[in-house]
């Protein structure tokens, strides 16, 4: 620590736009968030050469609207994973809130009430899960696994395993048409991602979420209410799962208890593909968004290719692993550098 260096710190004390920009870009910021983008582009190019009609506007809209549900649920999952947690109950909450709202809508015909009930259901489940994880301090994997069983079992029980339908056309239309021929659902996704990204990077709550993931001890000693943050993050995840459940219900013109269960893999997969760190403290909605599109184009492309469903599984799995290992490679190099 020769004096010159000490001075260099002093000089940076003047808040210049330049210095600020340098600080921002110096650490792994929004630039790293786009790291998966090249891979996505390569994928789209490769697929478009192999299939006809991938890049037609109608197909692009299909990809977007088909990814909507996973995209929305993945927002919540990203927040949870940023705290270093994991939420296995997402799929079951999607089913539960979808069924709840469909039930109200079909029985009372009151759309608003149905939506409200759906959102309430999801948020409440998330709140309970969060409370157990954060306040009673139980490992999230186990808690959300238990929640997955209880919620999906309970929903099936209450709905007698029946699909609740039909929901009114107005509700279905939400995921079929919209301004510019692009379904409202897709617009909603875009809106939610902008909001969520801003909340994550520009608000105190977002900062706290990341900090709980980065080091919960530091956060606690610095006065962050980690229990409240931890609880709230699962409630938020429940809320987004509920929105996803509503969109799915509208897309399928009805709600069944198990309709969300197959989605869990894609949701977690998308977050990881995007490069949000599973141990928490690093990640963003930008990354997750790219991950969602990646999986969306992948499955769309594969189905255009007429790939057998089991071959599609193999390819998807390979992609998830490779993307994650590329990220891991990078992290490994970083840690070495720090240690030296």
């Amino acid at each position, binding site marked *: 620590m020769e004096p010159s260096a000490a001075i260099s710190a*002093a000089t940076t004390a003047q808040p210049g736009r330049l210095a600020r920009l340098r600080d921002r870009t110096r650490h792994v910021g929004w630039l790293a968030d786009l790291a998966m983008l090249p891979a996505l582009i390569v994928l789209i190019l490769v697929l478009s050469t192999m299939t006809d009609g991938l890049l037609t506007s109608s197909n692009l809209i299909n990809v977007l609207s088909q990814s909507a549900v996973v995209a929305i649920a993945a927002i919540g999952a990203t927040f949870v994973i940023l705290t270093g947690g994991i939420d296995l109950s997402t799929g079951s909450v999607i089913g539960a809130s979808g069924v709840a709202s469909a039930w109200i809508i079909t029985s009372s015909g009151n759309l608003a009430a149905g939506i409200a009930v759906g959102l309430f259901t999801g948020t409440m489940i998330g709140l309970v899960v969060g409370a157990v994880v954060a306040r009673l301090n139980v490992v999230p994997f186990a808690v959300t696994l238990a929640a997955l069983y209880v919620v999906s079992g309970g929903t099936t029980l209450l709905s007698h395993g029946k699909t609740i339908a039909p929901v009114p056309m107005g509700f279905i239309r939400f995921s079929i048409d919209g301004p510019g021929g692009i379904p409202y659902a897709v617009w909603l996704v875009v809106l939610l991602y902008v909001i969520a990204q801003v909340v994550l990077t520009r608000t105190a709550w977002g900062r706290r979420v990341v900090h709980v993931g980065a080091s919960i*001890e530091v956060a606690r000693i610095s006065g962050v209410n980690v229990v409240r943050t931890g609880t709230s993050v699962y409630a938020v995840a429940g809320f987004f799962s509920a929105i996803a459940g509503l969109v799915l219900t509208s897309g399928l013109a009805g709600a069944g208890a198990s309709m969300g269960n197959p989605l869990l893999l894609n949701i977690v997969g998308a977050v990881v593909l995007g490069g949000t760190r599973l141990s928490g403290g690093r990640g963003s909605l930008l990354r997750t968004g790219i991950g969602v599109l990646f999986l969306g184009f992948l499955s769309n492309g594969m189905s255009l290719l007429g790939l057998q469903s089991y071959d599609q599984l193999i390819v998807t799995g390979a992609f998830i692993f490779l993307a994650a290992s590329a990220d891991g490679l990078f992290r490994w190099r970083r840690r070495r550098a720090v240690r030296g």
Partner: protein
Amino acid sequence: MFEHLHHDGEPTARQPAVIAVGNVSKSFGGISAVDGVSFTVSGGEVVALVGENGAGKSTIKNIIGGTLRPDSGHVSFGGAPAVEGVGSAKHSGVATVHQETSLFPDLTVAENILIDRLRSPGRATVRAGHLRRAATPVLQRVGAGFGPEAIVRDLSAGQRQLVEIAKALAADPHAIVFDEPTASLNLVERELIMGIVEQLRADGVAVLYISHYLEEIARLSQRVVVLRDGRVVADRPTGEVDRARLESLMVGRELAQGYPPLAPPRDAKALSVLDLGDGGRVSGVSFDIAEGEIFGLAGLMGSGRTEVARAIFGLAGDIGRVEVSGRQLRRGSVRACIDAEMAFVTEDRRHEGLFLDRPIRESLSIVDLDSVCRSRRIGWLDGGSEHRLTHELASKVHLVARGGLGADGGSLSGGNQQKVAIGKWLVKRPRLIILDEPTRGIDVGAKAEIYRLLVDLARSGTSILLISSEMEEVLGLSHRVGVMHDGRLAGILDRSQATQESVIRLATGGAP
């Protein structure tokens, strides 16, 4: 204090070097960690390896231990060149006692000690009886008060360190590398370990002793090797260098002698603690701190100093009363303490002090994030004011961040990490700041800077509760010294009465 040096057991020239480090260099990602380092350790001698943090001590340790491979140069054991890999050092009878205890908390003591030869001789299986029989004598040798079948998780830090040493001895090695063996131990345990080291030397074992505690070095070692910026700047008999010289060798410049002068405290009470307890063994602790006063809290490790600090700051238990300038504090809530303008610098910097893999900026602004929010209600962050705030704090603590405040906290040196851990509390001048081991594992230069910072804070009216295992530090910086013994406050000494002896007496349960 360097009068009583051990001059016996000087190494005789003909003895072969048990450890010979020859012109070793190693660099990480272009940055050179050690550069052309050479020294030897012979049987029956203790060689002390000293230097600031980042001087390359641990790199040398890892190269000798075989966990790192040198870029150039060679290491040889008893004349035989070492090959890369952990095995090599072990086979050549060179054992390492690690600082961060390298034990398995869920395994038994015996399993830990014998981890690399668990199998019963002549059998394919691991048998508890054999492990017990094999481990017991080693444990007796280090004077352990616990059995071989104890689970390490249940042991105290001192006991764990003993297991570490037992582990090293079990291989009965020709050479042992001690890396800060006493860093987290109390005086009694230190004595025990230093006794063991002396015994080892007497038995003709070659000892490389890495430590920040210059007293220990003076007492134990015959030769001292000083590293600075990865180079050996001195390698001479311990007798020939006194403490001040040693420090200047380590830092490379003469240090301002001693501690900065204290200003007299004010009359107004800043903090008063009544019958404090943490729900564990700490109870009935009562004391006051005046504004601008530095109150040192001494005591053996495990006497409850840290627990008192954490209890005051709402991190452990909520027994008793805490008043900050007259107003009673809601217990068990960190937030309440922060709102009362208290600050807490934890002893565990890397886990609790700052974010190692988030931008330094975030670690600095976290305490008072509201102050950089456009609207507190929605908590809307304002990048500009956060930038201003954090750079102000950085310069307050003379933070040296080569990568700027956008770089990750982990990229900072230990001293600078500590500066961040302190700096984040200086948004407003805190009424009371609690520092737990603020200079542990920090190089001498940074220490001096931190001392100055504390004294300046006190002068400006901040009260300071200072906890440190370095007796001199406490005596040198405190207006008054409280001494903990076995979970209770054994007594409070004025600066005039507080001496090493009086403090030790109280700390070990003697009468004032």
